[in-house]
């Protein structure tokens, strides 16, 4: 069945669709039940699947994660919502010390097939702590997968994959583009691969690599640059852990130039990782230094200045222009 949906609705569609197919899936989190989540990502699930499968928890993120791990060890498939990524920190001990390690620790005797969903990123003029993008912290943790969709279709397909994955997947939803784009989606139960980049636009002059809400800015920049006859290849990383360096490297080998765009702070961001890997593995292919367009190494300001913090398409255009001019 076809649905014309935004990213947020695609999340809801994937959840409902997969919960119908698999009775072992349960969802839990703060305000996900009657209220359907503060963004409505779990809207109507409580009505359809009942309180045993759609559980409002007490207010405690450590608990949400720890509980999910215990459930997952029994073969249930918990999908936990952390209301905003800025509130995931209390869950990190459980995620890092247990979710990511249980399979390895027990040599496969137990496992941890869970999904933790969280809206992330800035740009909606939200209160403090509601605009974080600290995906780099999770990308550094072996044993996790960290997936970030950037369109309704990829949200649908990747969330199905995350739910079916036998290992813990952190699923970060760029809330800034929750409602900004509608796409026709076939609710066909077909998952997209985790750990693979998506090449959204082919081009021969320069490679633009990004993820999440910054994909929109990147695509806008690529379009504008096409007018100046600069052909950008646009790659959506989609999984920041594990990173599909193969796709990125082969694109850079073709274009010889690379700009990486992300919203998170520059130092220690996932962009550094991609940049380092490219420089180390394709040094001789690079016709210009890699550029990174990122958030600053400072704290996301309160929302009145937030647009000064967030990279935008103009910044990307500037970086591309500069990279193209390098000789």
């Amino acid at each position: 069945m076809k649905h014309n949906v935004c990213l947020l609705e695609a999340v809801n569609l994937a959840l409902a669709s997969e919960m119908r197919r698999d009775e072992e899936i349960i969802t839990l989190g703060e305000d996900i039940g009657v209220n359907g989540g503060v963004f409505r990502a779990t809207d109507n699930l409580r009505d359809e699947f009942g309180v045993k499968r759609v559980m409002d928890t007490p207010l405690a993120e450590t608990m949400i994660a720890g509980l999910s791990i215990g459930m997952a060890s029994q073969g249930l498939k918990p999908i936990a919502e952390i209301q905003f990524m800025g509130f995931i920190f209390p869950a990190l001990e459980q995620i890092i010390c247990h979710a990511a390690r249980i399979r390895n620790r027990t040599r496969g005797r137990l496992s941890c097939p869970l999904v933790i969903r969280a809206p992330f990123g800035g740009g909606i003029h939200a209160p403090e702590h509601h605009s974080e993008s600290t995906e780099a912290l999770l990308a550094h943790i072996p044993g996790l997968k960290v997936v970030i969709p950037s369109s309704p279709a990829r949200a649908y397909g990747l969330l199905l994959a995350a739910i079916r994955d036998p290992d813990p997947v952190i699923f970060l939803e760029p809330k800034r583009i929750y409602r900004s784009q509608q796409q026709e989606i076939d609710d066909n139960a077909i998952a997209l691969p985790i750990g693979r980049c998506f090449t959204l636009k082919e081009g021969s002059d320069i490679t633009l690599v990004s993820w999440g809400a910054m994909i929109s800015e990147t695509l806008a920049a690529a379009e504008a640059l096409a007018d100046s006859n600069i052909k950008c290849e646009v790659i959506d990383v989609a999984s920041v852990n594990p990173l599909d360096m193969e796709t990125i490297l082969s694109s850079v080998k073709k274009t010889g130039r690379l700009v990486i765009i992300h919203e998170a702070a520059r130092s220690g961001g996932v962009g550094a990782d991609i940049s380092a890997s490219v420089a180390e593995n394709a040094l001789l292919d690079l016709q210009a230094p890699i550029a990174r367009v990122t958030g600053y190494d400072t704290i996301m300001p309160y929302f009145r200045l937030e647009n000064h913090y967030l990279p935008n398409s103009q910044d990307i255009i500037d970086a591309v222009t500069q990279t193209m001019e390098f000789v």
Partner: protein
Amino acid sequence: MTSIHPLQYLDPEGNKTQDLPNTCTSDWLLRCYHFMVLSRQFDTKAIALQRTGQLGTYASLLGSEAIDVPTALAMQKNDVLVPYYRNHACQITRGVPLEEVLLYWGGDERGNAAEKMQQDFPNAVPIATQSLHACGVASAFKIRNQKRAAVTLIGDGGTSKGDFMEALNVAGVWQLPVVFIINNNQWAISVPRHIQSAAAQLADKGLAAGIPSMQVDGNDPIAMQQAVQQALNRAYEGKGATLIEAISYRLSDHTTADDATRYRPSDELKVAWEKEPLKRLRNYLVSQQLWDESKEQALHEKISTLVQTAADKYVAMPPQPVSSMFDYLYFEPTEQLQEQRDWAEVRAMTGGSHYQEGESS
């Protein structure tokens, strides 16, 4: 479960249910009423500003007036308030200018910088984290032998988070001069109290930490005054921490981003309005010949001007410079950030395509 019954002096109609304590002078009652009305008018204005795109997401204080105002009035100036995001009534009563409170909700860090905040903490957004700060502040008082106390508030939902219980625990074992106040307004966004905990009373959590704990009618300012004052006295006297569970009701949506009709029975709200704190205190004042219709009107007019002036000041406030993103990160700006700071300034001047000055939602 021990039997603790909510402390109450005034019933919902404003009738005495027991003799009032001496500390509740007419003066105090009128001051208290003043700040409760001020808080509520501030709230109305803030919501109006939000609805017209001039303020960010805002958490209404409606229904917390009888908790926050008496708490602030009981505190010494040099005590430290460690609030969560719903304590503007407390902040206002402590003397923070209204326009600075608005600045915070308008997405501007200067709202946390008001000189009048003295050593008070800014609003804690990550739930329950503030409880531990209060214990740290109280530890400092204790280490330095100062007769001061830290006062911290939290919601009913917040009491489920581990750090709140870690805070109670350390406050108990270290006998810290701290007062914990739970604003049990029955809801944590859409999650009702009975889903948070099977504790017969949230106050029982204090017992688990060896802390004297009590339930108080949080719509009764006199009961709150008594409870907080006693708790503060214990703190000043070196007798340690107290936990107060104030029973109230969130008369508003969770925030302006929330729609409580999705999850909350409307008759519950109706019943709650019958117990609301302003009416209760006003009725009592009237019964004592301390108040009448004309005084009420005069007060409303006075406060209305105050609030409007503050709102005007707030709206007229230009945004901080872009460099402010960098200037307060460290005491001494690191060299490493200088380049980014310079770039941010250039960028602000040339203007990225997406940039819209002062936009808010």
